[in-house]
Each structure stands twice: as structure tokens, then as C-alpha cells.
């Protein structure tokens, strides 16, 4: 239908190179691109599925937690709250540095971008190391995944989040290495934006888990 094409509002913006990681349309001398990169669409789909996964895990945790007469069970060790508070601050700080990295790439500040990405990766690694040492101590004190619903839900929920943080740190390291080679700038920022959205998701879900598993 020849008349239809004119009525459809194109979801494209001018000013970008065609084919730069996104579906493009249009032509002529005006450069156009989709309003959202393919990578961003993919990571949003991943986040949607991960949110449903965490929703199910938290739902099962709530059943065990709220139906138990004593929580934690008397024979099992308590979770370390003080160190986890500090660890929470570390992770939230990494979200701030990630935000600053996105701002730096939008302003094509290469050095700042590299530094903020590196700091974010270091903070994420610190979070993982502290979690790992916490787990080693808990296992030594007798809290294992086989220690009933308490141990099972703790290791499943926190372990699942830890796996996501591990994946995020690995991705961040890859992006930081590429940023070291000067690959990203204001016109080519979509990879940094995509990893940032994933990192924000990982950071945003942690306070909820912390409150439910450690404080409730």
C-alpha cells in the first residue's frame, strides 16, 4: 500500500551511522538509526526473564520464611549483618560509578570512562570476595545448602544473585578493556549503556534480597 508508509511514524533518529548495532531504515544523505540499540533490547529481555526468576525464588523464600515458627532455626548460625551492610554500600557505590561512566562516555571523556569502569569492576569484585569469605565462614559454622529450608533458600537466593554479579563483573572487565583501547565515545556508547543497565539491575535487586534474607 503506497499511502501507508507515509503515515507510519518511524522509530529512528538522525545523526547516527546506519547499521551501527541497530535496525535502521531510511536512506539518502540523512543518517538514521533505531531509537534503541539491539543490544539494549536484548538486555531488557534478559532482565525481564531474570526478574521473573528472582520473583519465583523470593516467592518460595517467603513461603518458608513466613511459615516457619523460628527463623533462623535455633541450631544454625545467624547471618553476618554488619559486614553485609558494608557490602551493600560497596555494591550501591558501584552503581554510582557506573552511572558516572555512562555520563563520561556521553561526553567522550575517555580517561574518566576508563577509570569509572575500572572502579566499578573493582567494587563488584570486592562485593564478590566479601560474599565468598562470608560463605566460607558460614559453611565452617555448619550452615550448608542441605541445612533445611534456611540454608537452602539462603544459598539459592544469594548464590543466584552472586552468579549475576559474577557475569556482570566479567562483562564489565571486557568493556573496560575495550574502553582502554578508546573504542567508546559519545557516538558509540551503546555497549556501555547496555552493560550499565544490566549492572543497575544487579545492584537494584540486592537491597531487596538483603532486607528479605538478612534483616527480615
Amino acid at each position: 500500500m503506497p499511502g501507508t508508509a507515509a503515515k507510519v511514524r518511524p522509530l529512528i533518529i538522525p545523526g547516527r551511522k546506519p547499521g551501527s548495532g541497530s535496525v535502521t531504515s531510511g536512506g539518502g544523505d540523512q543518517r538514521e538509526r533505531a531509537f534503541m540499540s539491539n543490544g539494549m533490547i536484548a538486555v531488557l529481555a534478559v532482565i525481564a526473564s531474570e526478574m521473573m526468576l528472582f520473583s519465583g525464588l523470593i516467592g518460595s523464600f517467603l513461603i518458608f520464611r513466613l511459615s516457619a515458627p523460628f527463623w533462623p532455626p535455633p541450631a544454625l548460625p545467624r547471618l553476618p549483618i554488619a559486614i553485609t551492610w558494608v557490602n551493600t554500600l560497596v555494591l550501591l557505590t558501584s552503581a554510582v560509578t557506573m552511572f558516572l561512566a555512562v555520563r563520561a562516555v556521553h561526553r567522550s571523556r575517555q580517561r574518566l570512562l576508563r577509570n569509572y569502569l575500572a572502579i566499578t569492576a573493582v567494587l563488584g569484585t570486592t562485593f564478590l570476595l566479601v560474599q565468598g569469605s562470608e560463605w566460607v565462614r558460614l559453611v565452617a559454622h555448619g550452615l550448608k545448602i542441605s541445612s533445611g529450608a534456611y540454608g537452602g533458600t539462603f544459598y539459592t537466593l544469594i548464590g543466584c544473585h552472586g552468579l549475576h554479579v559474577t557475569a556482570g563483573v566479567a562483562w564489565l572487565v571486557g568493556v573496560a578493556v575495550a574502553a582502554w583501547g578508546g573504542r567508546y565515545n559519545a557516538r558509540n556508547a551503546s555497549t556501555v549503556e547496555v552493560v550499565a543497565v544490566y549492572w543497575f539491575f544487579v545492584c537494584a535487586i540486592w537491597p531487596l534480597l538483603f532486607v528479605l534474607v538478612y534483616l527480615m
Partner: protein
Amino acid sequence: MKFDGLKSMAIVAMAAAPVLAPRAALACAMCGLSPGDHAGHAFNTSVLFMLSGPYVTFGLIGGIVLIAWRRANRRSLVVKASTPPKR
């Protein structure tokens, strides 16, 4: 479509049913719980939490897409405004 009086009354009655007869309106077999039923309350809380999951997920992602689309539109208008007209 025009609502006549009977249809409107039926709609109001259906809307008021959960308030007027909550027990009868509850679809969940676990909802008529005694105060000490911890397991039942735990299941209810869990169900409500998981029920909110899809809404939060799609609301959040829809919000992100909307913000990106509006931002791109705004940028597009700025570029159009700054481009000199063709002869």
C-alpha cells in the same frame, strides 16, 4: 454502546460483590484463614508478591522503552530544527 439501567445495576453489583461478600468472592482456597495459620498466610503473601512480578517487570521495561523513545524523539526534533532548509 449504551448502558441501560439493568446492565448498569449488574455491573455495580459485580463490582460491589468482593466488598459485600468477601468470603464468597475470594477465588483462592487458601484465603479463608484462621488467625494462627502461618502456612496459609505465608502462601498468601508469596502469591501476592509473585503476582506483582509481571506488572513490575513490564512496567519497568515499558518505562525504559518509553523514556528512550521520548528522548530520541526530542533529539530528532532538535536536529531537525538546527538543519537548514533545503532549496
